[in-house]
């Protein structure tokens, strides 16, 4: 084997090795990425429109959402998960705002950050009417705060 063949084969070998490592790494990342989620579904039904009263929002603890119902405007769903570090915020009727117990973030009624370390407003989720007449919420679909479902 002469110098040139040696270098050629050597380069090819090293390139193959690098490619192999890259592919393996990608495979590891993909392997660790869950294909099935063993957790509550992102899309679920919350009941009939008549179950919800007008006025202050209803808090659904399991789903971590607030259901707003307004006589003129209709339904809106706010996330109860603080955008700072994921604690569950509470709605205070006294000032009409969301307060986070963890680091004191305060969100306005429209979800905008008014105080504290939260970097983004609370999320609003799409709510639609399912065939059976129930309200259906999809947490994978984030909508603008102005989104409303009139029932």
């Amino acid at each position, binding site marked *: 084997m002469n110098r040139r063949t040696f270098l050629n084969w050597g380069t090819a070998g090293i390139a193959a090795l690098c490619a192999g490592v890259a592919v393996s790494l990608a495979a590891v*990342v993909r392997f*660790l*990425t*869950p294909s099935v*989620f*063993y*957790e509550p579904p*992102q899309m679920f039904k919350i009941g009939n429109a008549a179950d919800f009263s007008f006025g202050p929002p209803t808090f659904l*603890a*399991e789903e*971590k959402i607030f259901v707003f119902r307004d006589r003129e405007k209709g339904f809106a769903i706010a996330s109860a998960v603080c955008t*700072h*570090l*994921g*604690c*569950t915020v509470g709605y205070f009727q006294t000032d009409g705002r969301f*307060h*986070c*117990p*963890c*680091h*004191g973030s305060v969100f306005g009624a429209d979800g905008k950050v008014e105080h504290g*370390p939260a*970097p983004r407003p609370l999320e609003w989720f799409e709510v639609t009417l399912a065939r059976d007449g129930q309200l259906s919420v999809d947490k994978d679909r984030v909508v603008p705060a102005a989104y409303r479902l009139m029932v």
Partner: protein
Amino acid sequence: MNPIRDAWQSIFRRDPLSTDKGKSELVFLNVWLHIHPAKVKKENLKVKHTFYLGFITFYLFLILVTTGVALMFYYRPHPPQAYQDMKDLEYVVYLGTFLRNMHRWAAHGMVICVFLHMCRVFYTGSYKRPRQFNWVIGVFLFLLTLGLSFTGYLLPWDQLAFWAITVGTNIGSYAPLVGGRIRELLLGGHSVGESALLRFYVLHVAVLPSVMILLTMVHFWRVRKDGGLSRPVWKLKAESAAKVVTIGAPAEPAFRVVPASKDKTYGLMEVVTGKPIFETVSAEEEEDTVFSYPYAFFREAIALVATVISVMAVSLFWNAPLEEMANPVKTPNPAKAPWYFLGLQELVSHSALLGGVVVPALAVLALVAIPYLDPNPSRRPADRKWAIRAFAAFAIVNVVLIIIGTLFRGPGWALVPPWVHISGAE
């Protein structure tokens, strides 16, 4: 025919001690004398040089492995059994509480000791040539220690665990681009749930300990290969200080291939030339050395016994906390990360990106780079006032932030002194 003697000699393959060969084999075949040099400098055995902190950290790790394996016999990494198993350990398993206490307190102790060990290595300037790389390995050992504590924190599956990990992993998700993805890979989902518990368990009992053991071996091997422990700082004389530290890996023409010469009795793949990389010992220093066995061994054994007894004593009197079962619906107020991350959380409560990502990333980078950026060859504290002040500032800021986060943060993360009781707070 003597089966007993045969059996004995099949285990200990050494000639009888009455022979010279047997005597030397006693030394050569002993793994502890393999890790230690035959002789060590007396001054290096002094408690005030190392405080034996590296050893204590290692012993705590051994305690953690032992008690951890014991706990594994009774632990199922799945909600809600995980929590029930904790209750079983507490109330029905013989010695369960004690073992759990030992595991918990040794884990806290290890975080503290590894940090103090790092401070002592910095203070004595022991990260300087030729020990730069061992410092870098040390930084990874430090991060691994934190990783082990963090993954272990979730396993009891109580409120404390659940919310600490919720808050902790959310800190990570602020890393630009990859943050959310890393969180998803770590949790195996969008939130802390059964997949997260299983993943943390596997990391905690298999992946991280293996890496830890591997790196610890490299760490010890490097201590030996770097010429044993550094000289205590009080032995460094002003004028010769520079000389002492420049002995080390050959500075220039680093590697030169030379044919093995005839007077060399051994070779290292025929490529390594120059001075040996360990510090050379002069004749007068030779007198200051003692045999590792028994002098170093004895002291290390004392440190071991003291460590084990201390952990046992603490475990007799203080129980590891266990709150209600994890409840994703109810956030405790305030929700806190594990204490060693409370400094981080304190920063994060001001700015998530800056405090949660930028500052810690820079801190780790700075730690790794210290031995390569410090231009000062001297190890004498008198010559490195500013380095020591800077590191002390780093350590103190850390400690103060952790104390604030632990003791002075009440509901809503408001500043509350620990002696004030807030009624109505959960």
